[in-house]
């Protein structure tokens, strides 16, 4: 315990000295997120400084081994770093599917050569990854995917189409599910493979969403040649890797609503609506809804903390991330409904500097995808019913 107290003190002091003040304010636009990659641009000098300091310390991913550019911290220490960052409202130095999704799968299923090739570029923010999972006819029923990988000597030739590929148009590499054995049962003929998005035959087309933005793409593969050495895990056992990665993706999505250090929602509402003489929000029913939301949000934060602690103690249930994904995304949708209600007509403005180009309504609309992407709420409930509750026929 004494060691951890010391570690906490040192962490606090280091963050205090190294996190620029601009990086302690809540994010207000898409530009505030740094994604890394070959074409990465910093939107500000403080963003660059913050990223580079964290990278040099190994804290873009504090709990990964140091040989791959991580911080080599154990679970308790990594938790302290998260807590101390949250305490000062520090932004994540980088947002990266390499960190939140691919990395954990590579650490578990990758060969040493694959880890050494890819992980250091993830921790250093040099390569930006995207995820090739869904297809036009494989959404909730992901395992029915049809993108083919045909053997040709030491390579596979890949043909097919992915959809809802987040930021495929900005990504450098893709981790992708492909069918390597069309004769096998649907879960048994899939492999998990990595390739460069600049490979010949890869093209992307952004999809315009109801938010007016295009975070997702259609991604097309036309005779793309990929070395067989790029398969992660066993050929035709890619579904295991896919599921493992999905647990991490779901944990990440469930945490997307977390807002460390920002103003309470009720105060944001009071900015627009006003308060009565006792300081209570001047809309009793909205106040009640926000208070109930706050209760649930605080409870979810405790559950997220407990999930990590249970996993560390070897007592976690692998399907519990589905439970958290369900609850976290539904809660985030509630948050944005409440933000829209709190803003009233001011939250309806779509194109103006005053509204940061409609930041609030666009964010509200974006959250509607939370309970669809990474497995719908209904699929999550089905997984809980089957794998945790063991209900018949689920």
């Amino acid at each position, binding site marked *: 315990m004494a060691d951890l107290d010391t570690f906490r003190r040192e962490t606090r002091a280091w963050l205090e000295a190294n996190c620029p003040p601009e990086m302690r304010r809540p994010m207000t636009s898409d530009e505030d997120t740094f994604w890394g990659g070959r074409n990465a641009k910093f939107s500000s000098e403080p963003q660059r400084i913050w990223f580079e300091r964290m990278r040099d310390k190994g804290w873009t991913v504090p709990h990964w081994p140091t040989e791959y550019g991580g911080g080599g911290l154990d679970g308790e220490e990594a938790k302290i770093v998260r807590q101390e960052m949250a305490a000062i409202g520090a932004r994540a130095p980088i947002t990266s599917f390499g960190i939140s999704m691919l990395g954990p799968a590579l650490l578990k299923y990758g060969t040493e050569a694959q880890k050494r090739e890819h992980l250091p570029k993830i921790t250093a923010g040099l390569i930006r990854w995207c995820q090739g999972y869904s297809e036009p006819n494989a959404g909730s029923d992901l395992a029915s995917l049809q993108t083919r990988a045909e053997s040709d000597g030491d390579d596979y030739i890949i043909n097919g189409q992915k959809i809802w590929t987040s930021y495929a148009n900005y990504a450098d590499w893709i981790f992708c599910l492909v069918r390597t054995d069309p004769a096998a049962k649907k879960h048994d003929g899939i492999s998990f493979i990595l390739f460069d998005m600049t490979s010949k035959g890869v093209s992307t087309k952004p999809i315009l969403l109801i938010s007016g933005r295009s975070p997702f793409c259609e991604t097309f593969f036309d005779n793309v040649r990929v070395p067989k050495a790029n398969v992660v895990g066993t050929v035709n056992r890619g579904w295991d890797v896919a599921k493992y990665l999905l647990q991490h993706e779901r944990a990440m999505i469930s945490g997307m609503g977390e807002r460390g250090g920002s103003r309470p929602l009720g105060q944001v509402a009071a900015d627009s609506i006003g308060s009565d003489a006792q*300081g*209570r929000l001047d809309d009793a029913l909205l106040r009640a809804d926000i208070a*109930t939301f706050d*209760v649930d949000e605080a*409870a979810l934060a405790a559950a997220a903390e*407990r999930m990590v602690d249970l996993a560390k103690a070897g007592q976690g249930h692998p399907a519990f991330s589905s439970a958290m994904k369900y609850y976290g995304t539904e809660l985030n949708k509630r948050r944005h409904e409440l933000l829209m209600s709190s803003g009233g007509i001011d939250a309806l403005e779509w194109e103006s500097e005053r509204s940061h180009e409609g930041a609030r309504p666009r964010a509200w609309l974006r959250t509607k995808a939370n309970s669809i992407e990474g497995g719908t709420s209904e699929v999550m*409930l089905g997984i809980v*019913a089957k794998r945790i*509750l063991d209900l*018949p026929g689920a």
Partner: protein
Amino acid sequence: MPLLLTEEQSMLRDSARGLISDHAPVAHLRKLRDSRDETGFSRELWATFAEMGFAGLLVPEEHGGSGLGAVEAGVVMEEIGRTLMPSPFLATSVLSAAALTRAGSAAQKSEHLPKIASGKLLAALALDEGAKHRPLHTSLQAVRSGNGFRLNGAKAMVVDGHVADLLLVVARSAGAPGERNGLTLFLVDPKAKGVAIERTIMVDAHNAARISFDNVEVTADHVLGEVDGGAAVLGGVLDLGRGAVASEMVGLSEEVFGRTVAYLKERKQFGKAIGEFQALQHRAAHLYIEIEITRAAVLKALQALDSDPAGATAAVAVAKARAGATATRAVQEGVQMHGGMGMTDQFDIGFFMKRARVCEELLGDANYHAAQLAAMRGY
């Protein structure tokens, strides 16, 4: 600190669970109810509780107790919640023991705490007056009289009020109802002149009483803590009690849920187990998730009560509000999914619904605690 029980706490849970499930399954409550038992709980079982160190769980070791904390109290309460065991644990071992330990004079502590720990003294906190839990709205009057005070007023929902050997009475010695200043706690002998106790049979068949105070004289020695400054002590004691009741509701919710899922697997209609129907699967999965999230929120509050009692208020409000909402959902789904059987007295599930309703009102319902949280957060 990991949001898990330690090894010692898990062992405590196992021993509490063993004792309670062996000696006080739901049938125990049913029997007490049906026989209109005058005590409302088993004194024999309470003696065993004391022998095992549960009665004095929160009592400091120098006064004969175990000197444990909120997490341990919550562990025991959760097991109590699983079987709905009627027990003096909440009123005597949690609320009263904590109030005496925190506010008692040396003489008060050494007089009462060892007896609580040995199971020989039952105590009750007389606080609520109106239909809803509003501690600061206390209006029972304490007027100075000679060397002491004279009490006038009435209390309701005094848990274990009709069997208590000692009453801890919250009174208003100054200020107006609603004000924080001016509350004083008194130790009152239930046999004192002017005290009238009416046992109220409640929906959940657990103990409660209405108590009126008609010019009840108490001396200065019977003041617990500071005159007019009772709110500070009371706040901490109530938070501990809220954490304990929230734990009871977690145990209750989980038990109802377990019974309901078992029923979904066993009951057949239309030629298959009703648990095969997706409409029920999704509701069951949702309820499971609510319970797990509430469990984490309650443990978070209990740990905060032990590590930073003054800063625990928000976490406790979250825990009690969540536990109330979750238990309410659990028992409603429990009855609905049991169909007609859930409506019968013969089936235990209704006992859980009744107890959940009482737990929800005890020490503040979900609305009360959500509103507290809103006020703490400045809106």
